[in-house]
């Protein structure tokens, strides 16, 4: 009985990119090089992780050092882009949408 349950896969994930395929047409989170993050709806991707995202919100995090206290100050700048082609070589990770939210 327990074996039967294990044999039924909830979703067919055979290779890593299948996980990305399951996120098609959903809002995903993409972590990019140079402290950039993008949230957007995934329209298409390929094996290089080139991606097409719509309603993308890019967050750039910069670190500045306060001249008086020498503390690190993180500053984020955000911008919205209606439709964006992201080149795959800058992608660090792709996270599927959160089921709970």
């Amino acid at each position: 009985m327990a074996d039967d349950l294990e044999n039924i896969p909830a979703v067919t994930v055979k290779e890593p990119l299948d996980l990305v395929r399951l996120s098609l047409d959903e809002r995903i989170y993409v972590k990019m090089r140079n402290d950039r993050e993008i949230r957007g709806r995934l329209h298409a991707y390929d094996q290089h992780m080139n991606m097409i995202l719509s309603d993308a919100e890019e967050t750039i995090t910069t670190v500045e050092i306060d001249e008086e206290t020498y503390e690190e100050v993180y500053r984020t700048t955000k911008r919205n882009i209606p439709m964006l082609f992201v080149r795959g070589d800058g992608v660090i990770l792709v996270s599927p949408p959160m089921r709970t939210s």
Partner: protein
Amino acid sequence: MSRMESVEQGDSKFITSGKEKFLYYNTLAIIVKALEGSYTLIDLRNENTVSGKIARVDGWMNIEMEDVVFYDSRGTKHGFSQFFVCKRNIRYVHIPKGISTTDLIEKQLNKLSHRPKHKKPHTFKKSRANRYQQETVNSLFSVRAPKQTAN
């Protein structure tokens, strides 16, 4: 000769190798290809931005642009009439509003696979060969035909 012909055909005239064709059909380079002729913004890896008309794209996503305004990271503008972006310097390509990406890909695939029929020149040699062939076929049948009736 055949290579020359395939190079000169229609929209696929800049496809130089099978590898490039493979890339068009298997990667998202095709969507940048589909943006040829439209005005877009390209973000580069070195924090600079280029805005202008995409003139030509190859399978590896190298982009040739025209009428370009180049914004460096401080926001200073520089104008260029021709501009070449090497593939590895691209970070983002902004896609113009109101474009369906699936339509874009579909249209571009149709364009790439469209092969206008190559008209071969009509030569005397060819028409003569045709005529001879027709004559031999006719003569064969005319020899055969009476036999069949005899049987």
